[in-house]
């Protein structure tokens, strides 16, 4: 960067420990905003579910419970491998960490593929976001979640490459941990979406 010469006369602003705890606090703050971003949709869900219980009940039957359940398992499993990946790198096991992150990414992609089939099944039944309030919620909630899955996958891909290149070790691994936190949030939101949309409708 053009700035480097005068930007860095004193080197880093923070010692590594502060930098680490700052990043972590920052990430948690960000996750808070993500929850509230989804919050509007959860609130809309709650209101409309209470107003149109029959509609929600009938239309939720059109969703594919099996696919939803499989996706839930996929995502939870990916969270497990992600968490283990963080532990691995903290123990200095770069290769294990890389493999675990890769599995996480594959799970994320699987999730996307299954979701793709679900969406196309809906479209082929002429079900679109404007079909009904329930399906609006279905498409918007899962759609916004999907966007988060893709962002998460992007982050994990970068982290994966960097891990392969040996940028992280037992001492410095903040990006893996941050990527992990983000990924867990994606899982966490799905944990609510699944019963709300597929099970109780």
């Amino acid at each position, binding site marked *: 960067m053009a700035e480097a010469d005068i930007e860095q006369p004193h080197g880093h602003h923070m010692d590594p*420990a*502060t930098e*680490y*705890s700052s990043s*972590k*606090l920052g990430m*948690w*703050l960000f*996750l*808070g*905003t993500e*929850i*509230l971003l989804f*919050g*509007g949709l*959860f*609130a809309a869900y*709650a*209101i409309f579910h*209470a*107003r149109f219980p029959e509609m929600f009940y009938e239309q939720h039957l059109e969703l594919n*419970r099996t696919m939803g*359940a499989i996706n*839930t*398992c996929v995502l*939870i*499993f990916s*969270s*497990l491998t*992600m*968490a*283990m990946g963080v*532990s691995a790198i*903290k*123990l200095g096991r770069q290769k294990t960490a890389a493999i675990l992150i890769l599995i996480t990414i594959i799970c994320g992609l699987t999730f996307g593929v299954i979701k793709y089939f679900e969406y196309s099944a809906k479209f082929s039944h002429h079900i679109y976001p404007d079909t009904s309030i329930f399906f609006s919620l279905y498409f918007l909630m899962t759609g916004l979640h999907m966007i988060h899955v893709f962002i998460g996958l992007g982050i994990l891909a970068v982290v994966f490459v960097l891990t392969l290149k040996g940028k992280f070790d037992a001492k410095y691994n903040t990006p893996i941990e941050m990527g*992990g*936190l983000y990924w*867990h*949030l994606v*899982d*966490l939101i799905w*944990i*609510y979406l*699944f*019963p*709300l949309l*597929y*099970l*109780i409708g």
Partner: protein
Amino acid sequence: MASHSHSEKHAHITTYKTYLIVWAALMVLTVITVYVSYVDFGTMNVVIAMAVASLKAALVALFFMHLKFEDSITWVFAIFPLGLLFLLITMTFVDTFTRVVVP
């Protein structure tokens, strides 16, 4: 420096075994919630599903996301948004469902 000394806490690395146990618990809960959804408990279905989901979410947050080992300020910022979400939902609810229906 403002921060207290976290260093001991940071040293905490969760073992694979813990993660696997948590994972197993999550899977069991998933099976339960899917199973329960086929049985009709009336409005209790919603309650059960949400309770199970919250339990799962708590497990993910506490263990996978390490919240259990974070300092109090992280806890505050993890829980406060949930409080706001609760507020948004309840107060919108109060408004929507106590309106006078004009004949």
